[in-house]
């Protein structure tokens, strides 16, 4: 029996790669506590950038706006993405299925400037033809984010749907359950973990988007990435370092919870019955 453990080279690359991924973040976190504005000077420990952050009204308003948009977009994207995943994994002979599957995979790689521009042109034309949307803002960003987030949800959910044991669903249908009831009683509980991870993924994607939101937003709606972008365009700012630290902390906590949860689920699945 040969040893198929990772040879030294690839293991070293993994460690170096992780170092490469995390070092810039560590730098951000360290410098968010620097009293000096300059990166090259360490002027002592300070939390003043955090208090500056919490007094920045414009930034807080943008955070609230972004969180609301991300919540609505993720929720809608889970609905649409799940339906798409169903069509792709289950309805093998449906007409129009190929078109649907192209439309759901393309947003995964489509350059953001193209998506943003095309949706803006749509909203402008719609405003001319049907009188809606009068003002671009939260609603238009919600539509744009829902559309590209659905693609990611569809990928996550279809991976799970492939593993679902169809015979239980068939049994339920044979016993007289309607397809709708079968879905809610049998399928939904089985794919629930995928729906949760799809929702979280969509939430972070929506929260993070700058380019598409910039195209389809109007004067009334400024999201967090737009505020961050206009500030970092001017150069390095310690307030943004503090914001970055808070974001990294939040994501790490959620990832840790998700990891514990997944590990528990895995253990439960492997336990002999």
């Amino acid at each position: 029996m040969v040893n198929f453990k990772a040879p030294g080279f690839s293991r070293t690359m993994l460690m170096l790669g992780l170092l490469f991924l995390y070092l810039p973040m560590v730098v951000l976190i360290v410098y968010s506590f620097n009293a000096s504005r300059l990166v090259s000077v360490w002027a002592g420990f300070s939390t003043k950038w955090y208090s500056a952050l919490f007094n920045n009204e414009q930034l807080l308003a943008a955070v609230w706006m972004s969180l609301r948009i991300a919540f609505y977009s993720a929720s809608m994207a889970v609905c649409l993405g799940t339906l798409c995943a169903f069509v792709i994994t289950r309805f093998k002979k449906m007409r129009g299925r190929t078109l649907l599957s192209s439309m759901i995979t393309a947003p995964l790689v489509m350059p953001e400037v193209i998506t943003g521009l095309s949706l803006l042109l749509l909203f402008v034309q719609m405003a001319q033809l049907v009188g809606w949307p009068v003002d671009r803002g939260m609603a238009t960003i919600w539509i744009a984010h829902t559309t590209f987030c659905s693609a990611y949800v569809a990928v996550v959910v279809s991976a799970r749907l492939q593993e679902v044991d169809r015979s239980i669903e068939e049994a339920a249908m044979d016993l007289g359950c309607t397809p709708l009831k079968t879905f809610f009683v049998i399928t939904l509980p089985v794919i629930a973990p995928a729906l949760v991870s799809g929702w979280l993924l969509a939430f972070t994607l929506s929260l993070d988007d700058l380019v598409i939101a910039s195209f389809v937003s109007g004067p009334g709606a400024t999201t967090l990435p737009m505020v961050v972008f206009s500030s970092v365009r001017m150069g390095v700012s310690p307030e943004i370092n503090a914001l970055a630290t808070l974001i990294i902390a939040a994501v790490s906590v959620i990832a840790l919870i998700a990891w514990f949860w997944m590990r528990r689920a895995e253990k439960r699945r492997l336990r002999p019955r």
Partner: protein
Amino acid sequence: MTKKLFATPLAERVRAVVFHRRVVFGIPFAWLLLFFLLPFALVLKISLTSAVMAIPPYEPVFRWLDNTLSVVVNLGNYVFLASDSLYMAAYWGSVKTAFLATLFCLLIGYPMAYAIARAPKRWQLVFLLLVMLPSWTSFLIRVYAWMGILGNQGLLNSFLMWLGLIDEPLKLLNTNFAVILGIVYAYLPFMVLPIYTNLVKLDVRLLEAASDLGCRNLTTFWAITLPLSKAGILAGSMLVFIPAVGEFVIPELLGGPDTLMIGKVLWEEFFNNRDWPVASALAIVMLALLLVPIVLFHRFQAREMEKNG
């Protein structure tokens, strides 16, 4: 249960199933048709108009006047793109930068994915989480982090000067090098993930057979592992290359005045010059350039999503 068991006739149940299928199919189909496909047709349409000072800032294509429908198609934007060397240079710059960044991502990402796939089962999840975690934090902020590191007064230059390796700061920020570094940094997780998914499914018995037949580790890798992970390499490369060609944020923040990338040019045409028709024509040409990679990616992704486990 409202209905008695087996009380529903078969024909009615079949009808119910067909109805549900239509609804399940129809909702996302209509949404994507309206908010994904139709917008591209509009981009094509606007790219064939000319810019005017109005709201919206372009001429209509179809006009109905005195019972005559006149269709004005203006190919001027495309002629303009072809005649101005700036745009050609921007397309070439984007493709070159994206290609180099994809290559570096592959060179770093493949060994990483390989090491994760060969790690003990319970460590795989931890490593995967560690690789994916950065991509769940803000993209913008991760690109911004490099501004503080690469700047003239930045961490890297200060460090190198402290070591005495250099006397004056190197120009690192606002160069094409910084743009490629930024893309590699931001997109690396998207290269690692599909290659890992592919490698972890690799049948270990093939490797054992090769080794039993006297293959050395490196030969086994070139003859078996690498060819079998072709699909993962392709998917990862497309996931990096296609968005990188149209990237705006990275060249804007890390690039310099000589960094010509099409995403940035499109942004400027749209927001600064308010020339929507030229911006649309730029988008159409970019799409045409990316059509083959997008189709390749779609074929891989559709296969991934359709197969039954």
